[in-house]
């Protein structure tokens, strides 16, 4: 009986902790929203963050995109050739990438590669009183540190997702057309014919924009609110990757249901 009560109590506490976390993140998001426009008064800060978060993530994104495209090409060819439909390989690879795998996998990789780095950087600046020093120099850390990092991540994610998809489609071409002998004209032709600019490409772009915003928010929030200790920093970076990944996958389901469900 007592064990049961304890379990229920623990469940309740877990829920309360979660609610508190969500609440304070929402408050933080409001505070952040206030500085998002003023942050653009120093565009160089933002470009620097796009470089740090985006350009430096290019290698992992391009390599991963290439491999995913190769695998899609192989698997797709195997299934489609059962139905004598291997000419549709191009559109299958392209749609999988543009609608789903591009936005989602690029976002997951980004959270691990750049989101965790953003969190760690901000948490370290907090631990070493650099944020307090900014405040006492009459420089708002929200504007100077948090805002540019948020923008950098949010802008980088959709661009990376687009490049992920492009490289993936080329990967599918390499395995399908060059190695397995699918007709080159139908690989590209079917993509051009069947892919909708607004529904497919636009839908994927909206998805990755949303993922970018969510990862950016989680990354800066976890860093800003990290406990100023070594273990606090470790917890914050882990939290960023875990929360971002779950949020991306959950959000992906919801958005897919709305966009492609009917």
């Amino acid at each position, binding site marked *: 009986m007592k064990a049961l009560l304890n379990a229920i109590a623990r469940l309740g506490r877990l829920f309360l902790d979660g609610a508190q976390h969500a609440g304070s993140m929402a408050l933080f998001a409001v505070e952040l929203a206030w500085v998002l426009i003023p942050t653009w008064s120093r565009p160089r800060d933002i470009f620097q963050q796009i470089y740090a978060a985006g350009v430096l993530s290019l290698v992992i994104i391009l390599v991963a995109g290439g491999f995913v495209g190769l695998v899609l090409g192989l698997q797709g060819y195997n299934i489609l050739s059962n139905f004598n439909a291997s000419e549709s390989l191009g559109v299958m690879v392209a749609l999988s990438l543009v609608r789903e795998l591009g936005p989602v996998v690029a976002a997951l990789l980004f959270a691990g590669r750049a989101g965790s780095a953003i969190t760690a950087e901000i948490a*370290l600046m907090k631990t*070493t*009183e*650099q944020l*307090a*020093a900014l*405040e*006492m*120099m*009459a*420089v*708002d850390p929200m504007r*100077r540190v948090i805002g540019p990092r948020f923008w950098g991540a949010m802008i980088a994610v959709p661009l990376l997702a687009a490049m992920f998809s492009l490289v993936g489609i080329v990967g599918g071409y390499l395995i399908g057309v060059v190695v397995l002998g699918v007709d080159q004209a139908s690989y590209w032709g079917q993509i051009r014919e069947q892919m909708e600019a607004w529904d497919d490409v636009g839908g994927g772009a909206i998805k990755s924009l949303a993922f970018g915003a969510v990862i950016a928010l989680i990354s800066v929030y976890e860093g800003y609110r990290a406990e100023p200790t070594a273990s606090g920093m470790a917890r914050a970076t882990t939290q960023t990757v875990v929360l971002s990944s779950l949020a991306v996958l959950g959000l992906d389901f919801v958005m897919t249901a709305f966009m492609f469900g009917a």
Partner: protein
Amino acid sequence: MIELDGVHFSRGAQVIFDGVDMHFGRGEVTVVLGPSGTGKTTLLRLIGGQVRPASGRVMVDGIEVARARRKALYALRRRMGVLFQNGALFTDLTVGENVAFPLRAHSRLDEALIRRIVLFKLEAVGLRSARDKYPAALSGGMARRAALARAMALDPEIMLYDEPFAGQDPVSMGVLLRLIRRLNDALGLTSIVVTHDVKEAMSIADRVIVIAGGRVIGQGTPEEVRAQREQEPALAQFLDGAADGPLNAAEDESPLSADLGLGGGQ
């Protein structure tokens, strides 16, 4: 210049300040002494407006810090320089860029002029040759002096020093002591030095305030504070660094056997 009026401040259940009154005079070096954990850093954060008192007022040059609007508060902070405990230098900027940072943030001076000011400030703390080094390459004492140069960059009227001597070897401590005194006199600053190094700090102080247990247990010139020790046993214990006395009496109140669950302790 700076005035604390019946300030209460607590963190959770722990009372940090229990109605303290303090006064810091213009142009003076005031040293705030007290055992670790008595809220000396909190005092600086109150003055800088980073935390608010639960009740009471903190006045800086006629402005109530906790009530000031953001703009007024930032204008006030621009007149303050803070030396943080570990320097708090920006680790991704060189020493020179660190010193230039507040200038670039708050002025529209051209680069050539900023360069000159930076060299000038670094010369004042004896670090001109280290301007292209990153903070990670500096020793503790050098980092603190670099941070001092940055704190002085905007020619503040008020300087706040948070434990400037912690972890310094005797030589760099001596250098810092002399710097604090000289800067104060040469530039007509109002300086507040928070520390627990009694002897060294007393040597440069115009006035001394000793806090312990959430209240002020002694204040005045160094001589006056030394003379007050007769009436205040806690002050005497702190100044002498005695192991036993009222400051750590609370530790011993409940017998160890009670915590061990032996029952016998009454």
